């Protein structure tokens, strides 16, 4: 099947239009001089200027970046440990409960996670702020990290690790020199996933943030609730641009490394063929 039938062409075109048109409209109207969505009053970058002068947004962006960087890093470490424990360490007491706690947060509605963490922080008499949001985000995103990492751990050959241990490497050396490089792509995509989840989260942050800390989604939500505001269009456009650049760069890097790996494998195969048939 090499060419698309008209039906398939139409459904792909409509599907992509449905997915992308709303975002394109958002981007276009962020450059609109008028405050109204229906009126095009000429090209202008005034909303970007107003956004950059709005300190509340800048502060919120700073808090969001801080929370995202810290929580996704801790979540990556914890999630990788959890994945390693589940896939490589076999049976240990309480394993069922442990794997249950890894998968449960993935399906738990955000309102419940947020509510339960808030009640915990109140019970512990903790001041709510950046720290409590970090703790909350780390908890739910470590589960996503461990799912991503464990799928990579399951698919790779355990005998490579065993060989390293047989050759005298300590378990830690084996992990650092053999396991980690092999699972690195999954660890990196786990970190990216945790980071995006943290940047995106409104509900859990609203429950766990005190009056002292506001994240960008919380700020956007309260602005949007009052109606459509052109400043938010500008902010959305900036966020879409950041994601697009990030994803395209990441895909170029993986594509290049895949090509390099293919070339190396081909060369290795050729070298092997020459070595085994020296007289050919």
């Amino acid at each position, binding site marked *: *099947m*090499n*060419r*698309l*039938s008209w*039906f*398939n062409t139409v*459904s*792909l075109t409509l*599907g*992509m239009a*449905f997915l992308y048109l709303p*975002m394109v*409209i*958002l981007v276009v109207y962020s450059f609109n001089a008028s405050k*109204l*969505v229906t009126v095009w009053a000429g090209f202008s970058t005034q909303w970007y200027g107003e956004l950059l002068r709005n300190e509340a947004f800048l502060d919120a962006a700073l808090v969001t970046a801080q929370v995202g960087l810290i929580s996704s890093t801790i979540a990556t470490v*914890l*999630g990788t*440990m*959890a994945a390693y*424990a589940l896939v490589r360490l076999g049976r*240990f007491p*309480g394993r069922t409960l*442990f794997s249950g*706690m*890894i998968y449960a947060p993935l*399906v738990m*509605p*955000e*309102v*419940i996670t947020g*509510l*339960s963490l808030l*009640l*915990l922080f*109140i*019970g512990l008499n903790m001041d709510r702020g950046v720290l409590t949001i970090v703790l909350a985000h780390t*908890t739910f995103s*470590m589960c996503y990290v461990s799912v991503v990492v464990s799928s990579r751990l399951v698919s790779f050959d355990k005998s490579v690790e065993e060989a390293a241990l047989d050759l005298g490497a300590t378990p*830690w050396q084996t992990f650092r020199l053999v396991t980690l490089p092999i699972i690195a792509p999954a660890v990196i995509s786990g970190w990216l996933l945790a980071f*995006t989840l943290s940047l*995106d989260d*409104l*509900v859990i942050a609203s*429950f766990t943030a005190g009056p002292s800390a506001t994240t960008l*989604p919380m700020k*956007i*939500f309260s602005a*949007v*609730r009052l109606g*459509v505001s052109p400043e*938010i*269009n500008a902010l*959305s456009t900036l*966020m*879409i641009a950041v*994601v*697009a650049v990030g*994803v395209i760069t990441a895909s170029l890097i993986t594509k290049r490394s895949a090509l390099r790996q293919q070339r190396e494998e081909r060369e290795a195969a050729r070298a092997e063929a020459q070595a085994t048939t020296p007289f050919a």
Partner: protein
Amino acid sequence: MRRLIVVAIPYLWLLALFLVPFLIVLKISLSDVALARPPYLPQIDWSAGWQGFHDFLSQLDFENFIFLTEDNLYWKAYLSSLRIAFLATLMTLIVGFPIAYAMSRAPVHWRATLMMLIILPFWTSFLIRVYAWMGILSQGGLLNAFLLWLGVISEPLTILNTDIAVYIGIVYTYLPFMILPIYATLEKLDESLIEAAEDLGCSRTRAFWLVTVPLSRPGIIAGCFLVFIPTIGEFVIPSLLGGSRTLMIGKILWEEFFNNRDWPVASAVAVILLLILIVPIILFQKNEQKNREAEG
């Protein structure tokens, strides 16, 4: 020793920040309204040993749950969440299946790019994707302007702040979760089976219904659960696109908590929401397990 550390750190983290908080919700949902006002201190008196634990248990009562059954609002909200989630899942399937099907029929060298295009919106902010529809669906929004210009309608329609807007929002934001699993099963589908059906006298459409759809069932089921389960507890979409009459349990819980400050009732709402979710989650896991067995 090292083994112990690798297990213990994430284990303790999840116990402290996932299981314990959840038990607190359960506890508060079962506690007396008067006792459950902040700061919630008389919880468990650990120093009193068994007597303390006994006192703690004797404080439990089902008052909050009884309250939930007495007020129409709550069970209506649960039913309406289930209805909205069900219909929205169905609509997502109707929109998503043709896209997944077309992707699986596209030339091989296009497929990675198409897949990327489907995943890309997932990486952009959920909140912003919902917000984008507010400008499109409002009274003076682009959709109305377009329809007026076409002459299909003579007066702007009210779409924003109705259930229809909620459906559009859910279909839009959850579409990738439907497309990807269906695409995964359709891509693996053996083309020769369809050819065989056609050789045996099936028309193209009949072959589609008799061969392609049944064989893509695991993907359809997985996609439906991936949309249905998170939609039930959805908060952002109903509160931005829905109206005051849109009842969804996630929104009720939020309002109960932030506006009414009634924590025990909010906790009870959360516990029942989880009970409702357990059935679809178990069904989903069974389906996944069956898939794994069929593959392995």
